[in-house]
């Protein structure tokens, strides 16, 4: 079950600010959607292993060699706010 209180909490975890009306509407829609998804509870998953990918691959590592990467200028080019070689965000410590 999902209700408005849970949605509010989850929205905070996801760092999404919701208007009161949005929260109300979203809660109703999610309740409806979760109600449908609850169908999964009928599936028999005893002794079934979970898969996170359809094609099995594990520990894919690259060679430990130096490669070219983005320059600082390029990496900063899209920043909404920057100073020198840094991204700028609102002040975090007093």
């Amino acid at each position, binding site marked *: 079950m*999902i209700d408005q209180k*849970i*949605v509010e909490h*989850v*929205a*905070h*975890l*996801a*760092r*999404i*600010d*919701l*208007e009161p009306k*949005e929260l109300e509407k*979203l809660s109703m*829609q*999610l309740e*409806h*959607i*979760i109600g*449908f*998804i*609850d*169908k*999964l*509870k009928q*599936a028999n*998953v005893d002794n*079934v*292993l*979970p*898969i*996170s*990918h*359809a*094609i099995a*691959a594990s520990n*894919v590592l*690259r060679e430990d060699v130096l490669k070219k990467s*983005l320059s600082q200028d*390029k*990496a900063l*080019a*899209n*920043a*909404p*706010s920057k100073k020198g070689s840094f*991204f700028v*965000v*609102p*002040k*975090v410590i007093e």
Partner: protein
Amino acid sequence: MEELNRLTAHELIEKTRNKEALSEEISASLYKRINEIDSKVKAYVRLGNTKEPAYPRTREPRGVPVTIKDNICTEGYNTECCSKILKGFIPPYDATVIKNIREAGHSYLGQKANMDEFAFGSSTENSFFGPTHNPWNLDCVPGGSSGGCAAAVASDEAIWALGSDTGGSIRQPASFCGIVGLKPTYGRVSRYGLIAFASSLDQIGPLTKDVRDSAFLMNIISGYDPDDSTSVNTPVPDYTKALVSDVKGLKIGIPKEYFVEGLGLEVKAAVEEAIDKLKKLGASFKEISLTHTEYAVPVYYIIATAEASSNLARFDGVQYGFRAKVDNLMDMYKKTRGQGFGQEAKRRIILGTFALSHGYYDAYYLRALKVRTLIKQDFDAVFKDFDCVITPTSPTPAFRIGEKMTDPLRMYLSDIYTISANLAGIPAISVPCGFTKKGLPVGLQIMAKHFDEEKLFRVAYSYEQNTEWHKMKTKL
């Protein structure tokens, strides 16, 4: 002059090779067409002045230009996933598929194709730039999320296109617009530079006017890429060699779970007629069962949203795109994301965060991963005895713009036949197989086992060569 934009890519490649057409002329005919009708179709976004086309790098047209979905990174050209939160984002690098296109001697359009925001949707209505219209009926959706690509190819505003498919986002719009759409095997095509939606499901693939173009484009984009740790290092065959009009002796399964309530009558009739055609051409058919089909949509909307909630955490107003003006860091994150994401994106991020959150993880996310195993095992078992599986691509033809926007669950159910291929990681293609009485296209879906795109091409090509559907043009 012949309208070059109406031709297929392989016809145009032939013409440029024989010096019967120049790349400049191809681009010019495309831009003329775009200028004439895109105000109605709205297949492209940020169009600006198309009379002065933006050619990448060389500023010269090369080969046959490819139309690109707005979630595939193109260095120096805006790539915004049709979202406000990525407004103004100009990638500092090219996706691997874009490099592949350049290395094959082709160019791409700097103007990108419309899509549902972050590929979240089945109708292209969830775009920050507004919906794309179906060229067969402008009151209908083109499908989604690669609806811009599909509508552009169907209306000859594009020669061929690259989209992405997480739960049907190439095949369903291809079906709605009467063109060919292929989702390759997971790992066949590099995802490097594709802005991630659900990393275990996403694949880039071609949207084309015919099956041969699909094989041509797959030859260009397939292969191992060290920059994508999920790309698979197996040899890439020449897919054009699989274009053989012969299905004699092929064993094809028809899953009974796909022909149930909810399947539109006209779609059912068109698909059954296609099956009869393939029977006459020598394929054998048998009813099969994919037992866990009913769980595909719920499994998908847990796994896809869980992965999306994690992938989209990077959009926080720090490194790129939109930032809300607030002077406190936590509020900046929340307001940026609250104002920058559209309704569907917020719905999915919150649903995915819920499925991963403490107290719900086992009941939803872990359980979904287990049911995913069951769905994959269904296909593994079928492909031991069958060469491929045939189904409708979508239960209905294109629906009207606005029809499903107020009911997200109904919208989710329009992917009911396409989702399983992503969960199982198998390749699947949609080819046109008829029209409804109202003139809307219907698509046939063919699925095969991992890395057997050749079987798809063989069946799709045989069907296409013995029918006329792919030659139909819109009245636009």
